[in-house]
Structure formats: C-alpha cells, structure tokens
C-alpha cells in the first residue's frame, strides 16, 4: 500500500471550479432550486458511471445578500441545504462547486461538472471565474 498519496490510496477523483453568474432578478427560491438540481444531476451522473456515489458533491454560493451551501452524499437522500440568503431576488454572485468521489478519475469528474454547468447556463448567465487549464492527459488516463 502506497501511503505517499492518500488520494490514490482511496481511488478518489476530484474537481472544483468557481463560476460567476448573473441572473435577471431570479427569485431566491428558484435560484436555490436550480442550484440543487445542478448538484443532483452531477451526483446522478457519478452514480450512473460508478454504480453509486461514494463521496460528495457540494456547492457554496455567495450572492447579493447572504450565502447558501448545498451538499449531497447520496441522491436518494436528497440535498442538505443551509440557506442564509436574506434577499428575495438574486441578481448575481459566485458559485463554488466541487466533487470528490471514489472510483471515478479526476478527468471524468471534471467532465461531468463541466457538462452540467452547460445546463446551468440555460437559466443564468455564467462565466468561469477560476480554473487553471491543467495539462491533462485524458487519453488512457488511469
């Protein structure tokens, strides 16, 4: 057993990204709901690839007047949401999203999240705020 890299030892794949978004005075409840659907779709994609989610998918959004955090460890259990947004309408902010899961490699986790960000673009204007372009070696990566 190689203790030098605990991530490899756990066979875990991870990816995180920060996105900036703008919305046209979206209702707060609608925003939280859309963020929840976004996370749930990531979790379900992982489950369909791996046969189950062992790990978690989580997000933190900072908006005009507060923040909301969401976490999911099992799609059947649903979302754990901590909503501290005081305003009724959302116009913009930032969202950090990350997933760390066992049995799916980094590249596939990244691919799943980026695909689902494309879905999120249908309901809000999104810019990727922070993601370094790594030298991925996607072909035959294991």
């Amino acid at each position, binding site marked *: 057993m190689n203790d030098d890299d605990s991530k490899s*030892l756990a066979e*875990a794949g991870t990816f*995180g990204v920060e996105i900036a978004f703008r919305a046209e005075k979206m209702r707060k409840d609608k925003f939280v709901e859309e963020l929840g659907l976004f996370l749930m779709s990531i979790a379900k994609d992982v489950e369909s690839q791996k046969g189950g989610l*062992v790990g*978690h998918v*989580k997000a*933190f959004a900072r908006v005009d007047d507060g923040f909301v955090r969401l976490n999911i460890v*099992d799609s059947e259990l649903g979302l754990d949401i901590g909503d501290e947004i005081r305003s009724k309408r959302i116009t913009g902010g930032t969202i*950090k999203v990350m997933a760390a899961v066992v049995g799916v490699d980094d590249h596939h986790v990244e691919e799943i999240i980026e695909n689902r960000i494309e879905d999120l673009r249908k309901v809000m204007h999104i810019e990727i705020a922070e993601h*370094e372009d790594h030298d991925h070696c996607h072909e035959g990566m294991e």
Partner: protein
Amino acid sequence: MVCLISGFLGSGKTTLLVKLGKRLGEKKKRVAVVVNELGEVGVDGAVIDAYGLRSVELTEGCICCSLSGSLMYTLQTIAKEYNPDVIFIEPTGVALPNKINDIVRRSMIHAEKNYGMVIVDAFRAKKIYKECELFFRRQIEGGDMIVINKIEMVDEATLQEVRELVASLNPKATIMEISAKEERGVDGIADTIAREATL
C-alpha cells in the same frame, strides 16, 4: 491545542467544525481553522468563513502527503501571529490522521495537546467500509475520539452495528454519538475540547 477533525468524504466534518467553533468562541476561546481541499477550488473554507470563523485554506493536494510542508508552515504562522487556544485542522476526506499527527508533531509549534477526532457517517458507515475497507480502517485507527454523526438518520439497530464496527477497529478510542445538523451531542464535544485546551 491542535484538534484534528478527520473523516471520510461527506461525513459532516465542516458542519461539526462550524458548530464547535461557535461554541468555543462563546467560551472565549481563540479558534483558528486550517482547512484542506484536494481540488484547486475549495468549498469548505468559504463555508467556514461565511459562518464567522477564521480559516486558512490549503488547496490542490492533501496535507497528509503533497502539502505536508505547507501545513507545517501554516501551523507555525498561525501559532506565532494569532496564538489561538485551539487550532482545528480539517483535512480532506481522504487524509490519513496518523500522518497528519506526525506532521503536527514535527511542526514544532509546541502545542501542548494534539487531539484527533474521526467523524463517521452513521448512515453510510457500512457502505464506505464495504467500498473502502482498508482506507476506512486506517482513518478510524487514527482517532482519539470517534464521533458517530448523523444519528438522526439511522435506527437503533444500525447505530449499534456502527458502534460495534468502530469499536472493533479502534478499541481504545472514546466513542461519541451526535447529530451535528440537529446540534445533538455537540455541546459535549465542545466541552471536552475546551477542557483539554485549558489543561
């Protein structure tokens, strides 16, 4: 005092840490947090800061291996500049507590106490043990206290199975049962840490 809050991905480390930090603040303890995420963008540091705690986030690696030097430097800086009563370390969900304990000892910050708790998700413990047995075992073995979290999600029979599992893996550890989400059992852990930090 350095308090390591480890545990598998999604076990509830951040939720517990925020609630412990709040309680220790109410007890006039100076609290600092070092939080670690594997990816280049972390979520936990933002959550911890949003709830009013003071955190340093180390990203893009694991503090028990690739970022061990960063952890040592961060601990030294916090100890020198902030002089907290308690430094919480929240590693990634795939960190090995024994390795971090070694790094804390080598950091020469003269923390009188080094206390390790491992959070276990009562609902998923058996599943994680089945999927990642060796890894789960190594995490449990590294704790002074095993905190069985999310007890609100399981029945008594399941909870008993989890108790027996963790006790078999680490017979010497103290076992606590909590619901961080519902704030059940959190006061007992905060009291233990406050007491240990005072001794």
